[in-house]
């Protein structure tokens, strides 16, 4: 989805449609919560719509130990509460602080924007994009939306900052933003960078097979050498005494 912040008038229809689609209590909310999968927050005169970014290389998907989160070809990052063990690593790791936890439940799950996966499967746009009266949120293929965003920036270079947020951020996200002011001023984390977060972990995890193989051989080798050494020492000692050598084994 492409979200053009210059077009958003703050009518909150998107949140209403989202709540209706997901059968959530209809009260207006300013922040993401268990009952608000999307929310508008105001920075000066701008309304910023936040929701799950549906990253191309999602951090939450990579950290989940039981693969309760998954990224589908169509874009949505889906969650399966039946698999979830409740380790809350996704809450800890999500660079956008998106997943919300049912803390008060004894069988808690996370809640977040589902990208209206059932609607997408039927060929419909997400509820929020369909409801948006000003075209601030439009739905489409990511490549086409990127072209459209670039076209808007080049058509009106004074209106926009020359950046499409989400194009490369944390490796690219399904949600793309256009803004008239630098994104850092709108509460977007400027420190995230372009490398997908899971790569940070992979640099360590990819060494696991090496540690196992090289470490195993090395430890085995050290055991053999030190064992041999004590065998030889035992043998030499017994030679002096004229006894038969005995193998030393662990007690």
């Amino acid at each position: 989805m492409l979200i053009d912040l210059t077009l958003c008038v703050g009518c909150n229809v998107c949140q209403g449609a989202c709540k209706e689609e997901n059968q959530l209590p209809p009260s207006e909310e300013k922040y993401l919560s268990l009952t608000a999968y999307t929310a508008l927050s105001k920075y000066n005169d701008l309304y910023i719509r936040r929701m799950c970014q549906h990253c191309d290389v999602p951090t939450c998907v990579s950290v989940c130990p039981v693969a309760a989160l998954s990224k589908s070809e169509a874009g949505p990052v889906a969650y399966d509460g039946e698999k979830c063990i409740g380790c809350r690593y996704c809450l800890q790791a999500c660079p956008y602080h998106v997943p919300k936890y049912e803390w008060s439940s004894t069988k808690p799950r996370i809640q977040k924007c589902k990208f209206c996966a059932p609607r997408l499967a039927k060929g419909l746009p997400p509820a929020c994009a369909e409801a948006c009266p000003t075209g601030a949120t439009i739905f489409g293929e990511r490549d086409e939306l990127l072209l459209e965003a670039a076209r808007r920036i080049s058509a009106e270079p004074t209106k926009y900052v020359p950046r499409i947020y989400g194009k490369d951020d944390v490796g690219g996200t399904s949600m793309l933003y256009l803004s008239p002011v630098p994104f850092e001023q709108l509460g977007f984390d400027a420190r995230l960078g372009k490398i997908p977060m899971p790569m940070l972990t992979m640099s360590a995890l990819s060494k696991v097979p090496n540690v196992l193989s090289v470490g195993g051989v090395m430890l085995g080798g050290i055991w053999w050498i030190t064992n041999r050494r004590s065998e030889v020492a035992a043998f030499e000692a017994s030679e002096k005494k004229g006894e038969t050598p005995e193998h030393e084994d662990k007690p």
Partner: protein
Amino acid sequence: MKIRLLPRITRWHPIATTLILAGTLAAIARFTYGLGATTNLSDEFPWGLWIGFDFLGIGLAASGFTIVAAVHLFHAKEYEPIVRPAILTAFIGYMLVVLVLILDLGRPDHFWHPLVMWNPHSVMCEISWCLMLYTSVLSLEFAPIVLERFNILWPIKWIHAISLPLMIFGVLLSTLHQSSFGSLYLIVPNRLHALWYTPLLPVLFFISCLASGISMILLESLIFSRGGRDLLPTRLRANLAKVIAVILALYFVVRVENLLARGAWHELTTVTYFSLAFYAELLIGFVIPFGLLVVERVRNSRRGLYAATLLVVVGFALNRMNTAITGLESYPAQTYFPSLIEIFIMLGITALGFSAFSFIVKHLPIFEPVAVTPRVRQEAVTARPEPVFLTRHGGDLESS
């Protein structure tokens, strides 16, 4: 021989009983009312005291693999007397951590899911597997001590038959998950404070667990030698102390070099909550004990060694708690202080661990592997006496 746990603490039994009871009640509350009502965890601070406790428990249990590797893989046989205490410490430490993890999970009833649902990209998945496998290895390493006590000898032969690959596997698993606890935080560069976040987190976690594991076992050997006999002769204790000093120095160099290279040292030029926490952990856990341990007189003295190793353990605890809690309070500016229920559960589980330890050393031959189990010794060790075996009157053979 009777070994008393920490004789200085009087009324240990009522204290432990109270703590365990309070912890049990707190755990019941946690399961009845859920995490939200009983903990101070939140969406912005989803991990708290219990994760810090896990780091601590696993780190202090590192003796389980270091001492086993030293004695059985590297054949430093003179340290044999501390193998069993080390394995017991590790076994209890891991059991406690598994207990805390299950309490910490939002869905404890799903704790078995990592067994069947895998995600090779997840550090948490790797840690779950390492924990399960290593706890199994520890159980097998610990089993002979229990079996001996009940005179069931046939399974011991089987365990001995696979002991070499088992021990190597155990050491590898430990290496992996000790460092992986650090890797957990590699993915939150935006949240963890620059004084603690570094791509070297797994390396630093591994190095520091070596020092804390050996310190813990030295502490134990000092505490439990008060009955009049030394578990390890002074010379060997001093050797281990030297090893700790080297590890501390290595850690200090890697940590500080990394701070300088990444420019994070700027954070240390001002006095903040974070820089103070950093100085505290580095001074208490690394600089001061290093300063103590390089002095030969300290290494040879009971009290000196006691103080130095205690500092290492405390500093290690600070380091893990700082990584798990303090460092994460920087962004989004969010403070966290554990709830009473979180604290009571942790204290109760700690008391349970100490009680289990003291119960087991009372009833199983942990601290007297040589004197109490002659039968196994006959079948395993040859007639050649090892130079450090203890005599009945205390002190080692060399000095007598």
